[in-house]
């Protein structure tokens, strides 16, 4: 069993009322913004299960928008997220849908900004912790504890070796590595959780690897 952190018990510092319905929701929104890597201009959020049933009580909707605006879970502007979104020109809509056999506190987040689009789905799993289980239709498992590199690439020999080589050259240690694809020879997804931050230069190098289509990162949350 992992050792219990002092500040997991005496903390986290957060805006209330609920660590799973409010703080975790802020972090899901923040993760979507960070993976998109740009200001969010348009968002469609689909609430599932317990999120759909009790969002109004714990302001899960407000919390998700706060995250999309770049607020952390202890940001005192969280209650005003809808007003801040208006000023920032962020358009948003909420929908309610059964997302299937997923955690009760789940949401699908579709975001757009500067011509780029991202769809992700994640769950708030308690104590403000999150699990992103879907990025662009690929099954993943990201909790934001590590810096995460996500590449979409052609499912060909050598692409993954080349990507990990670039990380090695930049002195970035991979803690966890996961690859998945939809069908053989189609597009594939690589997910690398690293001990070190991934600098912009390394990201540019990964982009130049033959076969790599898109590169996204999620800095530690």
């Amino acid at each position, binding site marked *: 069993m992992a050792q219990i952190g*002092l500040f997991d018990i005496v*903390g986290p*510092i957060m*805006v*209330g*009322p609920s*660590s799973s319905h409010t703080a975790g929701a802020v972090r899901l929104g923040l993760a979507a913004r960070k993976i998109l890597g740009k200001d969010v201009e348009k968002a469609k959020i689909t609430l599932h299960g317990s999120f759909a049933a009790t969002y109004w009580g714990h302001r899960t909707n407000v919390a998700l928008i706060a995250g999309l605006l770049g607020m952390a879970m*202890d940001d*005192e502007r969280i209650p005003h997220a809808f007003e801040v979104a208006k000023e920032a020109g962020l358009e948003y809509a909420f929908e309610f849908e059964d997302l299937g056999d997923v955690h009760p506190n789940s949401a699908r987040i579709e975001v757009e900004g500067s011509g780029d689009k991202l769809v992700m789905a994640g769950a708030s799993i*308690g104590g403000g912790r999150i699990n992103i289980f879907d990025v662009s239709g690929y099954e993943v498992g990201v909790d934001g504890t590590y810096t995460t590199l996500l590449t979409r690439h052609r499912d060909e020999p050598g692409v993954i070796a080349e990507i990990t080589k670039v990380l090695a050259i930049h002195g970035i240690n991979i803690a966890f590595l996961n690859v998945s694809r939809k069908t053989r020879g189609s597009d594939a997804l690589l997910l690398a959780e690293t001990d070190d931050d991934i600098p912009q230069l390394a990201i540019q190098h990964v982009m130049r690897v033959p076969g790599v289509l898109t590169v996204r990162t999620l800095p530690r949350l």
Partner: protein
Amino acid sequence: MDINSASQLLELMKERDQTFPQVVAEYEAFRSNTSCEAVREQMRETLKVMRASVENGILDRGERTHIITGYGHIFNQAIEEDRVLGGSLLRNVVLYALAVGQHNAGLGRIVACPTAGACGVVPGAMLAVADELGSSEEELIEALLVMGGVGIVSAAQGPISGAEGGCQSECGVASSMAAGAIVYLMGGSGEQVFAAASLALQSHLGLVCDPLASLVEVPCVTRNATSATTAVAAANMAMAGIPAVIPYDECVAAMKQIGKSMPESLRETSKGGLASSPTGRRIYDELRRKHSQ
């Protein structure tokens, strides 16, 4: 270095000839690969947020809460008009805990301790006692480390969420943590810290989590105040020499076992207890109707 139980923590204090807060600071510094100094600094920040949540919570008039209406403010008014019994300590314990609970429910910034639902217990009890004793900031940081130590051994051996263990695992554990901190501020030993923690937890065993309309409002916020009061009583009893009889580790094991035998309807699902009372259901229906419009 590992801390998995109260007995182990007390053993570490002896082995290393260190104080309770020293052991906890070293544990965390080792675990998160940082220095004891950095741990203490982070605790200083945590203390600031706790203080601010008390102050802001007293001003909160309940604009953002669904059922409760500025409980810290209401209680403060009553104190100012001398309409409540008890000396300054008892008054402040209730006031501070209500204020923080209200602030949390109203989307205020708080320290979840150990959870957001129980966030008023530790600041309520510990800060009111610190005001009474005139404790310094350094003493409070030490007391917070002791409180965290009680929390760590609780989490290592039992559930720390209403969904798993009912309210005994939230307000109950918070009350144990607060009782430990108070004993430390009173100059008690490590054994007395855990005696107080045991006495506080014993008074919460079996407590269910049945909040109205799935909110963190009723009965949560007023229960934060009574759990904080229990912490003071438990600390006083332990310091007076009244034994807990059952060691803290065994109290936590009992809490875990009770949590397992608690039906799901009484573990944060709002399907039983107060939530399913006629008034609880009526309030839920009213709120749901209001928000579906």
